[in-house]
């Protein structure tokens, strides 16, 4: 009983904490973010395993996590509202070469980030070559170039 409850509480807490941290946190992983992830996983592990190092416990914890993940993905598919709440919505941050500053600052995305994606994905050189830049639900920025 303990293992299932522990895993559930930790799963839900992580779900909430990463949602409130905002998508930029995991979207573009810097070296430090990577280290942070490692530390978080270490701290999480202690709380989930407790002092029970048995295989049964490990199986129960893993089983609970995967079951929650499956259940949530089914639920999200059936309820678009829950999907929005958990995953957020995509957002247009550059339109016809004009960055929408207010949205970008609230989403903690800089023009530099947009230009990086533009170079990476489309080989674009300047902001005015971008038709749309979209901050996606997973935190990445996608670029639609203006037709030449």
């Amino acid at each position, binding site marked *: 009983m303990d293992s299932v409850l522990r895993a559930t509480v930790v799963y839900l807490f992580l779900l909430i904490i990463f949602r*409130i941290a905002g998508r930029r946190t995991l979207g573009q992983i810097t070296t430090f973010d990577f280290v942070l992830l490692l530390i978080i996983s270490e701290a999480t592990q202690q709380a989930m395993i407790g002092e029970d190092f048995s295989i049964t416990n490990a199986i129960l914890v893993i089983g609970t996590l995967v079951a929650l993940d499956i259940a949530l993905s089914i639920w999200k598919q059936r309820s678009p509202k829950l999907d929005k709440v958990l995953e957020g919505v995509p957002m*247009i941050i550059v339109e016809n070469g004009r960055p929408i500053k207010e949205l970008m600052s609230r989403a903690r995305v800089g023009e530099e980030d947009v230009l990086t994606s533009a170079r990476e994905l489309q080989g674009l050189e300047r902001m005015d070559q971008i038709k749309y830049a979209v901050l996606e639900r997973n935190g990445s920025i996608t670029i639609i170039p203006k037709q030449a």
Partner: protein
Amino acid sequence: MSSLQGEKKLEIGNDPDFQRRSWTAQKISWVLLGLLLLAALLGLLGPGPLSSATAGNKNGSLWLEYDRFTRYLSPTTLRLHLGAGAISDGKARVVFGKDYLESIQVERVTPNPDSTETGLEGIVYTFQLSGPATISFDIRLEKVGPQTGQVGLAKAETLTFSQFVYP
């Protein structure tokens, strides 16, 4: 607003209203997270300044230092201060209430007791002491929620204290 035009042309299912509401929710959650950490720093979620408490009269023969807030299976210490009045014939007999004993694991008692006996009301620790002393009980609580403890001197005063154990 200009991004509304984009909505017509781009099929991406954006939702500016929802976006704004979720930012608000995010800001509120940041504040809540901050408050949680502040509470932890103050000692409301475990050991800390507001958690340290004492029971009994500091000038009397017996008083106790303990943590009001502790966590499931995490180490905590009860510090029992024995005055001259607690010692007779070079011995002090400390009694732990039975109910409290059922919710703790005793890891270590310093100094080592001379003897321990189990009585009706709980465990009696006998210490050989030549003068006032402090005895530390390193324990872990294994029950969650509010707990009431009793510790005292055999056939003399008893101190009652409460602790809250977080899961």
